[in-house]
């Protein structure tokens, strides 16, 4: 099985549009996974039927038992994250800042601090017309998004069966959730666009991806909005030895497809045509047919 993640560095370049289009026209047995757990959008395009939903428990969080607390404040002195705060004349844990390190429980002379599991989101599996999908929802303001990505990828592997392709829609950025997404993949498809921000972000993302030894492919979305910058991207890719597997034109049909909750490849349009060509090039490179 080939494990492929669609990523971008800069947000909003068209990862989900691309992942949905590839899933729609791949014509190989596949499993899908939405690794953008902060803002998971893949299901909006596939209207999936939910199979399972479970709680996601991240690391634990500290809780102070007011009965036992003697108000010494030693826990607050030792907390490096400012998570132990004074509220209503008592010490309490601010869950937005607690990192689950356990130092407060260790230093409390009264044994008044305990670490308790906390629910940070939920993980679902669903059936789409284009293969099973593992996806997740991080509760707003929760930490542990990297951990949740790792968990949702495990669910996808369990669903994979004898699929030939695991296709992941990745998060923006280059931090914790992105690293959790790329780790263990065979290849990444980086979706970029002709703008100075996207080009800058592409360079940083490539540096991170190289550390994971994955094959790197590039797609340039809305390439005709600034053809001079598109050339700069192609020059960069040439110098870095990265294969540009496709260039997608700006096409109002893309927004229209998103608005109507369907992959863009369901109807003929300039972008849909370019995506089919991209699929052929990419799949040939990956040895998929």
């Amino acid at each position: 099985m080939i494990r492929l993640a669609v990523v971008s560095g800069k947000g909003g370049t068209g990862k989900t549009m691309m992942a949905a289009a590839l899933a729609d026209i791949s014509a190989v047995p596949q499993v899908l996974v939405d690794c953008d757990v902060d803002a998971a959008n893949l299901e909006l395009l596939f209207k999936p039927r939910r199979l399972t939903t479970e709680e996601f428990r991240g690391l634990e969080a500290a809780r102070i038992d007011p009965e036992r607390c003697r108000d010494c404040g030693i826990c607050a002195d030792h907390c490096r994250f400012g998570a132990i705060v004074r509220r209503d004349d008592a010490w309490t844990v601010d869950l937005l800042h607690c990192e689950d390190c356990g130092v407060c429980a260790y230093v409390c002379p009264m044994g008044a601090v305990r670490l308790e599991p906390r629910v940070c989101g939920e993980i679902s599996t669903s059936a789409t017309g284009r293969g099973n999908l593992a996806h997740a929802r991080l509760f707003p303001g929760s930490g542990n998004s990297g951990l949740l990505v790792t968990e949702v990828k495990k669910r996808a592997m369990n669903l994979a069966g004898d699929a030939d392709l695991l296709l992941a829609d990745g998060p923006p950025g280059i931090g914790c959730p992105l690293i959790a997404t790329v780790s263990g993949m065979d290849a990444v498809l980086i979706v970029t666009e002709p703008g100075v921000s996207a080009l800058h972000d592409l360079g940083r993302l490539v540096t991170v991806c190289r550390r994971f030894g994955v094959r790197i492919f590039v797609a340039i979305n809305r390439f005709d909005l600034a053809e001079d910058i598109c050339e700069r991207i192609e020059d960069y890719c040439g110098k870095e030895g990265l294969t540009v597997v496709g260039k997608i034109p700006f096409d109002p049909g893309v927004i229209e497809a998103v608005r109507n909750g369907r992959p863009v490849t369901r109807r003929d349009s300039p972008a849909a045509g370019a995506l089919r060509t991209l699929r052929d090039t990419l799949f040939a490179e990956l040895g998929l047919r």
Partner: protein
Amino acid sequence: MKIAIASGKGGTGKSTVAANLACTLSRSREVALVDCDVEEPNLHLFFPAPATDVPVTNLVPEIDAERCTLCGECGKFCRFGALAVLKDSVLVFPHLCHSCGGCVLVCPQGAVREVPRTIGRVACSRPLSRLTLISGVLNEGEVQAPAVIKVAKALAEGHPLILYDASPGIACPVIETLEGSDACVLVTESTPFGLHDLRLAAEVAERVGISAGVVINRSDGEDAATIGFCREHGLPILMTIPFSREIAAVQNRGGLVCRDLPGWEERFAGLFRAVLDLPGVRA
């Protein structure tokens, strides 16, 4: 006054709004613009200027092999997997360390000490006569984005007017950015993706307890669902920016519409007035 610019979805135009708002306001007052999207900071591309770097470090354990008896307490305590006690040595995985200091506390031999390790930098520059740009940059391969955001924000403290440009998403880096802000501008686009993620971002602002309003970017006029959501949730619409190839072209080349296209400076000044009018902001 501290204003955070955020969005759940990436690429909705946070940096566009932040850069244009900062440039417009700097015509008449001192502004500090802080790039808190430390994974992919972009604001410096719109304000090129020589910068001074401040390194960002976090503390990670170092084991004194002479004193260490390989008792395993540090490895047992560390919940992040940053320490592995082997038969003949202790392995430290510094990129997994959250710098809680627990290993130092639990070591019965006093064999653990903490040493600084560079995970990023903050670049400070003065691109315009009244604009200070403070950009957090996380080193490639590092994961502790909030630590870099914290330093960038600390360096801006004391400025009378501060704008924070957040990263996309709804997790710890966004919380770190929003904390302590007086108002939050949520930038969205009028697609189902934009609306889905706006809903999440609005929840984060509410959870942190910050008054928020919405900017609809790249509008093609089909904004009814977004407007309905905003009305239902008491989120004022602060500004609507239409989709146009002309705006996209300015933005893609690192330009600023408030400088390069007529009428936009006044519109961003209007955005600032609308932010001041958010409930509880001008108090």
